């Protein structure tokens, strides 16, 4: 567990204790609501997790690297940005991967596009986002994020 997750656990536990001191009944009611919330989301989250597992089995991250390396800059950028949207790779795999790409002097724009869409745009999390926020919100946020991910990548290419 990293410090930030740990910190969130500690904060939550402190909140629960304060809440208990303030009002026992309200606290138990909140915990019941939390449980209900969890129940309502758990199946969707499990589906997301197993879908990510599936996508990673079909398109292993290493293949993504090979794909980016061989292409011309425009296709590499759009392609990697798109690949970034479907997969969700933990940072500890993504950064070394992107690191190798940059070291191998693969164009930096593609690498950054991949890195940004990886976390910000989510096709696998889209159904859940739609369920929670509505279709319009989910589409608008993801499309805008995708466009700006590419803009960020291009700017990085110019600056670095």
């Amino acid at each position: 567990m990293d410090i930030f997750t740990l910190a969130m656990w500690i904060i939550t536990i402190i909140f629960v204790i304060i809440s208990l001191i303030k009002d026992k009944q309200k606290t138990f009611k909140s915990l019941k609501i939390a449980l209900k919330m969890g129940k309502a989301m758990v199946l969707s989250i499990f589906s997301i997790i197993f879908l990510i597992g599936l996508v990673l089995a079909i398109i292993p991250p290493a293949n993504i690297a090979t794909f980016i390396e061989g292409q011309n800059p425009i296709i590499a950028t759009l392609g990697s940005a798109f690949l970034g949207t479907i997969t969700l790779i933990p940072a500890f795999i993504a950064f070394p991967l992107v690191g190798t790409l940059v070291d191998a002097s693969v164009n930096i724009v593609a690498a950054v596009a991949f890195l940004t869409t990886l976390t910000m745009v989510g096709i696998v999390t889209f159904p859940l986002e739609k369920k929670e926020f509505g279709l319009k919100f989910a589409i608008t946020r993801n499309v805008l994020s995708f466009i700006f991910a590419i803009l960020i990548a291009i700017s990085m290419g110019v600056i670095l």
Partner: protein
Amino acid sequence: MIKKIKNNLFIILVALSYIFLFIFKTPLAITSIKNSGYYLKEMLMIMPIIFVLTALLDTWINKETIIKYLGKEAKAKGVILAFVLGSVSAGPIYAAFPICVLLHKKGASVKNIIIILSSWAVIKVPMLINEVKFLGLNFMLVRWVLTIIAILIFSYIGGKIIKDKDLSVDKAYEEGRVNLNIRACIGCGICSKTYPELFDMENQKAVIKELNDVDQERLDDAIKKCPVNALNK
């Protein structure tokens, strides 16, 4: 039944692809499950506290506070707070969903919700540390600054496109959500008399209206009074 399938289409599709894979490509299915392991662990470490935090916020933080700090009028203060909230939190992007839905319900603006979600996804502090390690300080700083500028711009655009009412979708875990068994309902109208803000009568059957702040006691009262137990939580 059809509605149930439609609501759970995504889950069903994922389950079906796994069944299909297990039959025709067992090794690939096993790799997939192994890959999922990391994410499962990540989820189990963060989601329980996310739900507890969200529920506690719901109970203790009142609307005025959220409107003041994250609402439309919060201006720069709201934007900075949204960035900080997103950046210091742990967990994958979907962990931010329940909290953001709640914050919006309590009066946070769409723009600030987008900032929280996006910064939760891309500019988390633990991620930045990792980025320095593998890509260098320069790379991280430039990307960080550019990302913040980008989020500022597109959250503004998003806030203009998306209206508050677009977000009031059917939330499965909404506090005090009530199920109505329409077949059992005999149309007596007691629920709509007990809690007219939440229940209505249509074609001799009860219907549940959209209501943001459900009074639990009155809802419980209505549930208790239903002569055929057609209502339940």
